């Protein structure tokens, strides 16, 4: 799965730390999501999509490897 979190963060000009504080997780969690090392829960994905005002499908994309 790939995601557009880093792109959206750049568009909204917000740091990992600020985004983490706003949605109540650690900076490490945001960093791990951006680097595709961690797949967030549905709740966290919804919080991120709400923050960036995009749909979950615009923020996260399935790849062929995901089946």
């Amino acid at each position, binding site marked *: 799965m790939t995601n557009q979190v880093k792109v959206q963060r750049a568009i909204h000009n917000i740091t990992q730390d600020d985004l983490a504080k706003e949605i109540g*997780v*650690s900076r*490490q*969690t945001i960093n791990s999501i951006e680097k595709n090392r961690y797949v967030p829960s549905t709740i966290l994905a919804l919080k991120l999509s709400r923050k960036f005002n995009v749909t979950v499908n615009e923020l996260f994309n399935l790849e062929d490897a995901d089946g």
Partner: protein
Amino acid sequence: MNSESLMDCERRNVEKLKRFQLPNYFKKIGLGLLLVSLVAIFLNKYLFEQDGLRILFRYGMLLGLLFIAISKEKLEDELIAQLRLQSYSIAFVLGVLYSLAAPFIAYGVDLLQSKEAVIKELGDFTVLWMLLIFQVVYFETLKRMHK
């Protein structure tokens, strides 16, 4: 109380147990207890040589590690919860493998040193110590990998 409310009550209790964690400051208490017990166990070995004290300090070491293992992080989020779960599962597997292999390794070493070799079971302290050490070390390693 009907069976449905009994089940609800049981479910609530299981949920409480699943979420049970000590506050973050127990990490420091655990580390202190572990270090003090480690020093005390060495002092006891060379100065006092009392079996009762040795057992007491071993309990201190286990309790210290347990406090470290089950206390919360400063920010306990879903990534930390997942890393904690992974560390428990790997500690369980490594702990079992260690318990199975260690008596035979010790036996082999005794044989190589031409000592009287006997296969001895691991004590409960060693098994618990290794389980807790594996969990704490692996959890810290996973956290470092996600920095």
